[in-house]
């Protein structure tokens, strides 16, 4: 009877959450994670931002440093909650409830951001192959910068926090602009064969949207961390 219950749970889980697709985002190894983290903090030297494809399906993150993954965003989110708890603890404002509070508020902001991006993509009627999970992954990458900023704020005080956070804001902006573009323009390059002039206006709109999304990231980074550094 328990095995029947488990079968029912498994079947319904498969309907709600595409486990197979999720497995793709977690197929990472240590080398990829190291390179991706380096890219998130210092994206200025990277030349080739194209995601490699293999028979029309993107290659697993293990083999391509440009592919999005979910391991880093999830870990970064939980680390952010932990570092927030640490920051609160050093200021004697810690209680186990506050951990839950930080976690839920950060999660709520993440959901709001992903929904806002989805809405704007829908309004602009752009066809991309950016799935929701990709958007969650991209929105989660800024937590890495937030953590670095918070840790330096804990170690070096307010000036350290502002300097490092400023640097991370710039890097996440550059990262978003360049990485997002390759995914978006994949669709565009196929349509470009038919007629570039017709798509000109839409192309510009897409650029503006990418810029807007990339510009919102530093705002979120500041909003979610400034109250932890006093």
């Amino acid at each position, binding site marked *: *009877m*328990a095995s029947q219950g*488990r079968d029912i749970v498994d079947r319904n889980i498969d309907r709600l959450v595409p*486990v197979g697709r*999720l*497995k793709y985002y*977690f*197929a*990472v*190894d*240590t*080398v990829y*994670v190291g390179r991706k983290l380096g890219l998130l903090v210092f994206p200025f030297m990277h030349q080739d931002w194209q995601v490699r494809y293999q028979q029309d399906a993107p290659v697993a993150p293990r083999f391509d440093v440009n592919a999005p993954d979910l*391991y880093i965003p*999830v*870990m970064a989110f*939980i*680390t952010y909650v*932990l570092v927030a*708890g*640490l920051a609160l*603890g050093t200021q004697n404002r*810690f209680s*186990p409830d506050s*951990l839950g509070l930080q976690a839920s508020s950060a999660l709520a902001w993440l959901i709001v951001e992903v929904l806002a991006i989805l809405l704007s993509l829908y309004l602009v009627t752009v066809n991309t192959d950016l799935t929701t999970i990709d958007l969650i992954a991209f929105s989660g990458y800024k937590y890495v910068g937030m953590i670095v900023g918070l840790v330096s704020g804990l170690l070096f005080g307010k000036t350290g926090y502002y300097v490092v956070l400023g640097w991370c804001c710039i890097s996440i902006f550059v990262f978003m602009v360049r990485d997002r573009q390759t995914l978006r323009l994949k669709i565009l390059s196929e349509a470009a064969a038919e007629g570039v002039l017709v798509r000109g206006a839409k192309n510009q709109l897409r650029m503006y949207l990418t810029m807007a999304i990339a510009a919102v990231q530093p705002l979120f980074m500041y909003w979610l961390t400034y109250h932890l550094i006093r």
Partner: protein
Amino acid sequence: MSNFEQFHSDFYQSSYTIDNQEGYNSYGCNENLCGSRKNPTGERPRAGAFVTSEILLSSQSYTGQILQPTYSPDTLSHLSYTNGFDEEPPLLEELGINFDHIWQKTLTVLNPMKPADGSIMNETDLTGPMVFCLALGATLLLAGKVHFGYVYGMSAIGCLAMHALLNLMSVTGVSHGCVASVLGYCLLPMVILSGSAVVISLQGILGTLLALFVVGWCSLSASKIFTSALAMEGQQLLIAYPCALLYGLFALLTVF
């Protein structure tokens, strides 16, 4: 609904007894349902049920894979005329508590540099983890923090999350019980940390260093056992990091 009309038509005493009987009947039905469900769920490994009582464990059917049978067929035939009480296996064996294995697993945890034997973790044993969790709660209590509920909640959520992550990252899956067992055993250094928090205050540099060291120790042993049991090469650090996050949460609870 029908007995409500009866209440109006009958005398007070008779409707009272009818209600009483129906009340008893429904209570009996619930008992049966719970009873019939308890045995199968007792067999299925639970996610992070660290603080459930051992009574539920004892209702598991005896699987006999933990120890060699301590009674041979000779003694069985010798004792066959007194069936029932004497034929039952010893209590600890029936409960599935094998002190030798528990001690072995504890030693594996305490020495993360030694390569682990992946087969020890095949048996999902929740006794050791439960003892360690209760010890953690007790040492926190000694330091003046009543955090049993938080320990329970964080371990349950941590087990679920770790189980999901390991199933997503590995080729072969794991069961909840295995994850709970491994994470619970590797909680032992955290018990040592909270024990030391009773004596010294952990809020200085020394306390932070000690906490970091203990968190690293816990996550290193947990990731070592996981990678050897799941055969994930090149991902030990990736498994160690979520374990470190989980044990870091416990350390936060202990230090602050």
